[in-house]
């Protein structure tokens, strides 16, 4: 079965420090991996994706993610956190059983950036 796991319910970081939000995946075949962000009382917004190519993927708002095939991970990173980055972050994998954009989401990690 295909799945993603986000092992941390919450990540706390001081403003200006680097941040990492972890995600591991389990898929058959090549993974299509995604990160989405949800600000309070809002829908989800696409941040970035890995389909193929460079293992380091750059996305919106200064975020990047590193695809690591040997560790089956796709961690979200940012060199310098902002208070405004505080939100709920979801990792997702495309369900390869369907030739469509059906995504399987993780349980989410709440990022809290303190001033």
């Amino acid at each position, binding site marked *: 079965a295909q799945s993603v796991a*986000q092992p941390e319910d919450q990540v706390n970081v001081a403003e200006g420090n680097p941040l990492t939000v972890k995600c591991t995946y389990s898929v058959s075949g090549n993974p299509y991996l995604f990160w989405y962000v949800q600000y309070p009382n809002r*829908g*989800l917004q696409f941040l970035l*994706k890995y389909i193929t190519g460079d293992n380091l993927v750059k996305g919106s708002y200064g975020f990047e993610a590193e695809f690591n095939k040997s560790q089956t991970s796709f961690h979200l990173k940012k060199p310098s956190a902002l208070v405004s980055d505080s939100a709920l972050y*979801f990792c997702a994998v495309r369900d390869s059983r369907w*030739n*469509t*954009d059906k*995504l399987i989401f993780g*349980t989410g990690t709440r990022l809290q950036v303190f001033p």
Partner: protein
Amino acid sequence: DVKVTQSSRYLVKRTGEKVFLECVQDMDHENMFWYRQDPGLGLRLIYFSYDVKMKEKGDIPEGYSVSREKKERFSLILESASTNQTSMYLCASSFPGANTGELFFGEGSRLTVL
């Protein structure tokens, strides 16, 4: 910009009522989705549709049905609401044929069933 509009941000219904959640997108997307979001469980797919009048069950379709009579509109129906359907419901759509996984989400509909 792509806009996905969910008709109601907040609803309160009673057990046994029939509930309609409406979603409209304005970018001619073929794919549309209904997810529910619960703390600690993330997003779980209820139903999706890849064309008008086409629908496929997701991971948790029990107690729900959907309707897609027009390309821009995807409705989620709770035939007889129950308290365990209290949740945040998110509609999403994606570009036709791209299969990129870039979903565009609405703001969500928070349903409380008493």
